[in-house]
C-alpha cells in the first residue's frame, strides 16, 4: 500500500454550507478526508475540540487513541501513515503538548511521510503574551514541516483544514501542522468543504520531460555495467512492479537505500540488498564499479553516498525524482528525470533495450560469493548474537500468511534487521531513516497495528531506544493490540558504543545502559513476556509469541559487544569499508556454520 497519485474519494459527507462550531469543523473535516483514527492527548487549549469529539466517538465515526506522551502521537500517526499510505493524524494541546510533538513531526517529514498535526493554541486575545501553556508552535515547527498554519479566524478554518490534507498528501508527502486558537474552536461559523484548492506556485506533480526519459534510455542502452539505486520514492509512488519489469527487461542489478528496502524482493537474483554505511561490501563495490547509476526516488543521503566526491566516480548518473530540489542538491546528475515514477517508469520501460549484462552480473555474483566466504553470517551459535535473532525472526514470520510489518528503532539492531531479515516487498519495514529517532519503533508499531489489526506487527528495538518510549505499553493494552515486541538487549547504547570502540579508543562514555527486568515490566502492564539468553531458546519463544493472542514481549539478552559490519567510516568512500572480522576473532563470529 503506498501513496500514489489519486483522485480524492467521495467521503459521502455533505460538502455544502452548514453551521458548526470550530471544534466540530475539525472533526467534520477529518471525516471528509477519510480519517477514522486519530492519536492524541488532550489539554486546556484543545479541550473544546475534545468536548466535541464525544459525539463522533459515541457513534463510532472517529476513534481517538489516547497516547502517554505527545511525541508518540506523532510517531503513531507516522506508523499509521506508512502502513496505509494515507495521512496519519495526531491532535494535542498547546505549549508542551505541541513542543513534545516536534521530534515525531521531524521524523515523519525527513522520511516524506504524510502527517497532519492539529494543535490547540491559547485564545487569540492572549497570543504573544507568554500566556500559560503558550508556545510559538508555528515558529517552532516550521523547519520540520512541509507547511503549517495558525488559525485565528473561524472563517479560514475549513479552507485551512482542506489545504493541510492536500499539501500533506500531494507530491512528495510531508507534515502539515494546524495550530488552532481556543476561541476559534468555541465560535460558530459556516462550514463548507466544496471549494477547489488553488495554491499558485505549489507544483506537487511536475510534468516529466519525454526528452529526459529518452536521454536516460540512451545512456542505459549504451551501458555495460548499469546499477539501480532505489529509494523510498519507489514505495511512495507504488511502482515496485514497474521497477521489477525494468530490472528484468534490461538486466540491471538493484541496490536499495534503507527506506527503499524491499523495493524488489531481496530473494531476487538481481537484488544486492542495502548499500551505504552498513551495506554489504559487494553492494557498495557495485556502486563504485558501475558505469551508469540510475537513482530512483532517493536523495543521495550521506549514509548512502559516503564521501561524495568519490561516490560512483566511474558512473554517469541518472536521477529519477519527484522533488526538483533534490536534483543537484548533493549529486549533480548527468540526466535528471523529474516527475512521478508512476509516470516516468512506464514511459522509460519501452525505450530500454532487452539486455542481460551477463558479464557484469557474473562479476557481482563473484564478489557476492567472496563476501559470503569472507565475512557474512557465520554465527557462533554457542552465544546469543543479534544477527542470529534477526534471522530467526525472519524464519518465524516467513511461515505466517498474515501481512508482516517489521518496525525497527534506531541503532545496531536496525542495521542488523536490514541486513539479516529478508524483505520480500516494499513497505514491510517501517523505520526512521532520515532523522534516526530512537524511541520510534514502539509507537510506530502501534500506529501500524491500529491501521491493520490483522497484520503481524513486530516491533524490534534496542534496550536504549525502547526505554525512550516504553510508556506506550499502556496504550497497547488500552487498545488491545497484538503487537509483538523484540528487545535486542545488549546493555549498551550499541551503535554509539561501536563508534567509541572504533573511533574513540574504546572509551565507553555514557553508553553502558541499565535496563529494568523487561519481563516484570511487561507483567505490570499485563503483557505476556519471556527472556531469552541462549540461542537454543529463540525459535520456541518466537513460536510462543506468535501463538499468543494479543501482545507479547521478548527480551533477547544478547552478547554485549557485537558490532555491525561491514561499516563505512563517516567521510570515507563507500568502498573503503571495515569488513567483518575473520572467523575465530572477536565479535561472536566463528567458523561454525549456522544451524539454518
Amino acid at each position: 500500500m503506498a501513496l500514489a497519485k489519486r483522485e480524492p474519494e467521495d467521503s459521502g459527507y455533505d460538502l455544502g454550507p452548514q453551521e458548526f462550531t470550530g471544534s466540530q469543523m475539525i472533526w467534520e473535516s477529518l471525516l471528509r478526508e477519510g480519517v477514522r483514527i486519530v492519536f492524541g492527548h488532550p489539554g486546556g487549549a484543545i479541550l473544546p475540540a475534545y468536548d466535541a469529539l464525544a459525539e463522533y466517538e459515541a457513534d463510532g465515526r472517529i476513534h481517538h487513541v489516547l497516547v502517554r506522551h505527545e511525541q508518540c502521537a506523532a510517531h503513531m500517526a507516522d506508523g499509521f501513515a506508512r502502513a496505509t499510505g494515507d495521512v496519519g493524524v495526531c491532535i494535542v494541546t498547546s505549549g508542551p503538548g505541541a513542543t513534545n510533538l516536534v521530534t515525531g513531526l521531524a521524523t515523519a517529514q525527513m522520511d516524506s511521510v504524510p502527517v497532519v498535526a492539529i494543535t490547540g493554541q491559547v485564545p487569540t486575545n492572549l497570543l504573544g503574551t507568554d500566556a500559560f501553556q503558550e508556545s510559538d508552535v508555528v515558529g517552532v515547527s516550521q523547519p520540520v514541516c512541509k507547511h503549517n498554519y495558525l488559525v485565528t479566524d473561524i472563517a479560514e478554518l475549513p479552507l485551512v483544514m482542506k489545504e493541510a490534507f492536500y499539501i500533506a498528501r500531494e507530491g512528495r508527502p510531508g507534515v502539515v501542522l494546524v495550530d488552532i486558537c481556543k476561541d476559534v474552536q468555541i465560535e460558530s461559523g459556516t462550514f463548507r468543504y466544496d471549494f477547489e484548492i488553488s495554491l499558485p506556485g505549489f507544483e506537487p506533480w511536475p510534468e516529466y520531460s519525454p526528452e529526459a526519459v529518452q536521454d536516460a534510455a540512451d545512456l542505459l542502452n549504451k551501458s555495460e555495467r548499469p546499477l539501480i539505486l532505489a529509494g523510498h520514492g519507489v514505495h511512495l509512488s507504488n511502482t515496485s512492479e514497474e521497477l521489477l519489469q525494468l530490472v528484468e527487461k534490461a538486466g540491471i542489478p538493484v541496490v536499495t537505500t534503507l527506506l527503499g528496502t524491499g523495493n524488489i524482493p531481496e530473494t531476487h537474483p538481481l537484488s544486492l540488498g542495502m548499500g551505504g554505511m552498513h551495506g554489504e561490501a559487494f553492494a557498495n563495490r557495485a556502486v563504485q564499479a558501475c558505469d551508469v547509476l540510475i537513482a530512483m526516488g532517493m536523495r543521495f543521503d550521506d549514509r548512502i553516498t559516503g564521501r561524495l566526491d568519490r561516490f560512483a566516480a566511474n558512473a554517469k548518473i541518472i536521477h529519477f525524482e519527484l522533488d526538483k530540489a533534490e536534483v543537484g542538491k548533493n549529486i549533480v546528475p548527468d540526466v535528471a528525470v523529474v516527475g512521478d515514477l508512476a509516470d516516468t517508469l512506464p514511459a522509460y520501460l519501452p525505450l530500454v533495450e532487452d539486455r542481460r549484462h551477463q558479464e557484469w552480473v557474473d562479476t557481482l555474483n563473484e564478489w557476492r560469493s567472496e563476501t559470503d566466504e569472507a565475512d557474512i553470517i557465520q554465527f557462533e551459535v554457542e552465544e546469543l548474537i543479534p544477527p542470529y535473532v534477526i534471522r530467526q525472526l525472519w524464519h518465524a514470520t516467513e511461515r505466517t500468511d498474515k501481512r508482516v510489518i517489521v518496525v525497527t528503532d534506531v541503532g545496531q539492531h536496525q542495521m542488523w534487521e536490514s541486513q539479516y531479515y529478508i524483505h520480500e516487498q516494499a513497505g514491510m519495514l517501517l523505520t526512521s531513516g532520515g532523522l534516526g529517532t530512537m524511541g520510534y519503533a514502539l509507537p510506530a508499531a502501534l500506529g501500524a497495528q491500529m491501521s491493520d489489526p490483522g497484520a503481524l506487527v513486530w516491533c524490534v528495538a534496542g534496550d536504549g531506544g525502547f526505554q525512550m518510549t516504553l510508556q506506550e505499553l499502556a496504550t497497547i493494552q488500552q487498545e488491545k493490540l497484538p503487537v509483538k515486541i523484540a528487545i535486542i538487549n545488549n546493555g549498551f547504547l550499541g551503535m554509539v558504543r561501536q563508534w567509541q570502540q572504533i573511533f574513540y579508543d574504546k572509551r565507553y562514555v555514557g553508553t553502558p545502559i541499565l535496563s529494568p527486568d523487561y519481563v516484570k515490566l511487561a507483567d505490570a502492564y499485563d503483557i505476556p513476556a519471556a527472556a531469552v539468553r541462549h540461542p537454543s531458546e529463540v525459535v520456541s519463544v518466537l513460536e510462543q509469541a506468535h501463538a499468543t493472542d494479543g501482545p507479547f514481549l521478548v527480551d533477547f539478552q544478547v552478547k554485549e559487544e557485537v558490532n555491525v559490519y561491514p561499516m563505512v567510516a563517516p567521510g570515507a568512500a563507500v568502498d573503503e569499508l571495515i569488513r567483518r572480522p575473520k572467523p575465530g576473532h572477536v565479535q561472536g563470529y566463528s567458523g561454525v556454520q549456522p544451524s539454518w
Partner: protein
Amino acid sequence: MQYTLVAWMRDKPGVLNRVSGMLRRRNFNIDSLQVSHSETPGISRMTFVVDGDERVADQVVKQLRKVVDVTAVEDITERLAILRELALIRVRTTPATRGEIMQFAEIYRAQIVDVNAENLVVQAVGTEDKVDSLIDLLRPFGIEEMVRTGRVALCRGDERPKRKKQPTSIFKAAASLNGSGHGDQE
C-alpha cells in the same frame, strides 16, 4: 558570483519568516534581501542577492519554490534589468567641508535631504557599486549613521520574467467563506 533572484509570495503573516528561516536552515549565503508590495494586491515581492556558484543559486531557487506560500521565483541574473539601491547617509560636516560634500553628492546625482549645523543627510540612489563608491568618498568626512535598502530589481521591457497570471480562486474561496477576508484579487 552574485545572483539576483526575485520571488513572489502570498502576503500572509510569517511568510518572511518562512523564507528567511529556510535560507538560514539550508546555510545559504544571502547578501541582501528586500521585501515590498508587488503590483498585485495580496502578493509580496522579494529581491535576493545570493553569493555563490551556479549550483547554489539553482538550489536557492528550487528551495524557494518549495515554500508553499511562494507563488513564483525567477533568477534574473542573466536578464537586462534595472538594479537599484537607495542609501541614506548622515555625514559629519564643518563649515569647511560642507561644500565639498555637497559637490560629491551632486556628481553622484545624490540629494541632500536634511541639513543641520553638524551634519547633513545624503540620499543616494543607484547600483550598489555607485552607492559603494559614494560612501567611500564620504567616509573620510565621518559617516555618523547609514541605512541601505539592499538591491531591488526590475527587468527591462521584453526581459520581464514570464510569470503565469496568478489564479484567483483561492481568494475567492476564502472571500466566499468570510464575506470579505482576503479580498477579491481581480
